[in-house]
């Protein structure tokens, strides 16, 4: 088991590195030079100055050497300096990661807490109005483009009805709580600041609902389908035949088995949520990693792009690994492959 895990971890890291190599090669084809964008117009027109700053950032070295430097820095835990923000990429990531994690986790929790019970009830009362409602709502969630949903949510609840707070993690005149974890909810509770906690919570409502829409739909459908399949199994009929109460049958026998594929799907969904927040963050002015990635890609900030590629790939691969491990827990034969 341990060998399996360590094998997978090594492979994961190797794959993530390879991903950075691919990104590096593609972006080296790009005609844009971030140094020219960084310098002012007059300075950029002077080749000596441009050459000097390119050398300062190591951009005048041959490609393989640049990548080698990236690797060596990486093994010292240094992701390089971001060209557009002028500070270490790691510092940028540490600043923006909590916002994304907070948003993604809340969205994930929402989709689980709403989706699973919804799916279970829909399966139990198949073809009832609850079932149709669940299918319909989940289809809406899966069919709506996030950026459109965000726009509609903002326009209706913030622009017209004015019951939702505006974009951003807090109101314009609120100040963030002292940083402990970076999550405003946790930090404001730690500081005992109830007002900021409420403000942060209000600001989380719309973006997390919008973000969770698609995942909610997916989980509801998966739960429902899985539950239906489980309920049709023989051992369930046996349990009923034994005279167990319906509730015991469902909770004790059907549910645990039905939830297995749901859990694996949920794991992947969490990974997707964490890595797919670009649209939501853009529209809600959420200072998170998605928006940072997008901005870095726009400004061809190579160190930042490589850093984010690495992080995303690792997050994705590790969550995949955890999901596969949960498979292995259920079915040990998987390990033999």
């Amino acid at each position: 088991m341990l060998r399996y895990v360590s094998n997978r971890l090594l492979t994961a890291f190797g794959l993530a590195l390879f991903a950075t190599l691919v990104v590096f090669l593609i972006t080296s084809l790009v005609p844009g030079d971030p140094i020219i964008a960084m310098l002012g117009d007059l300075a950029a027109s002077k080749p000596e100055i441009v050459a000097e700053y390119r050398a300062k950032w190591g951009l005048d070295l041959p490609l393989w050497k640049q990548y080698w430097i990236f690797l060596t820095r990486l093994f010292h835990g240094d992701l390089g300096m971001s060209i557009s923000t002028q500070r270490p990429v790691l510092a940028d990531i540490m600043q923006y990661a909590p916002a994304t994690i907070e948003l993604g986790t809340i969205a994930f929790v929402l989709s689980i807490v709403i989706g699973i019970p919804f799916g279970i009830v829909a399966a139990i009362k198949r073809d009832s109005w609850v079932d149709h409602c669940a299918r319909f709502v989940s289809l809406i969630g899966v069919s709506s483009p996030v950026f459109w949903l965000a726009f509609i949510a903002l326009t209706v609840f913030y622009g017209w009805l004015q019951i939702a707070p505006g974009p951003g993690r807090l109101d314009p005149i609120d100040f963030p709580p002292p940083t402990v974890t970076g999550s405003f909810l946790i930090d404001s509770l730690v500081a005992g600041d109830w007002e900021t906690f409420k403000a942060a919570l209000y600001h989380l409502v719309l973006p997390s609902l919008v973000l969770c829409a698609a995942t909610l739909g997916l989980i509801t459908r998966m739960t429902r389908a899985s539950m239906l399949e489980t309920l049709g199994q023989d051992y369930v009929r046996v349990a009923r035949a034994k005279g167990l109460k319906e509730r015991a049958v469902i909770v004790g026998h059907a549910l645990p088995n039905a939830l297995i594929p749901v859990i694996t799907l949920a794991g992947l969904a969490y990974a997707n949520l964490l890595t797919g927040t670009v649209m939501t963050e853009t529209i809600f002015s959420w200072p998170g990693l998605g928006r940072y990635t997008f901005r870095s890609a726009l400004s061809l900030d190579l160190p930042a792009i490589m850093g984010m590629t690495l992080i995303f790939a690792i997050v994705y691969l590790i969550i995949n690994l955890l999901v596969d491990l949960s498979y292995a827990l259920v079915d040990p034969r998987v390990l033999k492959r």
Partner: protein
Amino acid sequence: MKQDQVISVSRRDLLRLLGSGGVASLAGWPAISALAQGRKDTLVIGIDTSDSTEFDPVRDLHYTPPMTVSACYDCLVTMTPGDYINLKPGLATSWARTPDGQGWRFTLRDNVKFASGNPMTAHDVKFSLDRVRYIQFQSSQYLTNVTSVNVVDDRTVDIMLKNPNEPLLTILAAPSFVVTDRKVVAEHGGDASPDSKQKDKGTEWLNQNSAGTGPYRLTQWVRNSQIQLVANPNYWGGKPAFQRIVIRHFEDGSAQLLSLRRGDIDAAFNLLPEQVTSLKSDSNVWIARHISLDFVYLALSHSPELNKALANKSARQAIGWAIDYDGIRDGLLGGSATRPANFIPVGSLGSSEDTTKEIGFRQDLDRAKKALAQAGLPDGFEFEVIYGNSMVAGTSYHVIAQKVQADLARVGIKMKLNPMPQVNVRTLYNGGKMQSVITYWNPPAVENALWGWATVQRVAKRLNWKPTETLVKLVDQASMEQDQKKQAELWRQYQIAMVDEANLLVLFQPIYQVGVRKSIKDFPLTAAGWQADLRGVRPA
């Protein structure tokens, strides 16, 4: 607005005013009860600060940080909003040529103290200017004519020049050339020796604090979140109007609009023209307007390898006659723009709206078609334009480009659109590898020579254009002409020549529109480079 004045300070309000942990940081300040005036003592501004990377004056300040820098520091000379031709005293009360005529001598103001309490002397001026020159970043390029800065005595400083007729004073009014507290900056790693480029470490501290003589001091900067300024009790110009200024970062105009309506912010900078129109019916808000000195222009390359048609002057002139400039101004910008004849903005010496009417392009489709015929291209031609996919002046390059495309199509000219990330645009334009480009120009300092030289030197190179000897001589002559009236006439001749060349077509010059709440009486905007003159903002 009575309710603004009497506010019992709840814990939340207090925390809002002071910021988290703010109580601790106020050790040494007068009693907290003095702050019970509440919201009225704080000016809250909403603006997109995403371009802010540094607040150290010697670094490249981009577009938004100058507003903060100009509130915290002073220059030797300055420009009052609306007058961009005559300089006003700043930290220097008078100036004249040095006795040998090779430079300028500045007499400094008496009794000026930095926020730290240190007195301002000529040594600080020397330190600040030397630091800019030796750190060799963007702003140092504008002081290449300076050979040395010499301290004569505590109240007098000389700036010696290579060519004493080249403009200097207008450049010194720009935010990059403020006077910093040399003791404090040196304490935190600042270096003004000729090795400053390698040795200077002061930027990190200066990004979170300021060391100047201005009415406010920088106390905190959280990237893409907020900038906090606090009143400077040692300010030489009197008591600052506010105890605290908070500049809040907003990504988009609609959030600023709603916050402005609700009174959460006092001023909103990035409103779209449609949003400004919707504010006209709001009785709590007024609109501050001011002509900027920035402009959006279309540059056309002369290189026949890139596009044979564009290399022909008549073809370029056809483009100039075909664009619907008024439509852009009224349709896309809600009327909130003006237009110079060429590369010198309206409001600067020698350029006004009348000048444009007299010598500039306007939409005239017949003349466009005639120009096409003259170029031997009666059926029109094709060319490609690049531009950045971003917002500008309340609209986007996308929209502007598509409008121009539609205008040109009416005379048979097909403009192909090639939007790309801003970085690519800058790189291609810098290397002169594009057929044409729509981009933005904002002045580093208000000095015609800078525009003039830029066009005949680096911009000409990018456009593969070799300007005539006469034109280059004209620019030099105009730059060094000391008599204002004669200078204006020379610049007019320069613009006539540029319009004829038709390679830089200015589409519009935006008029800033800022939404301000009626609780603020004065909100002076400026086009001299720092957008708003925060020291002049006064509550009602």
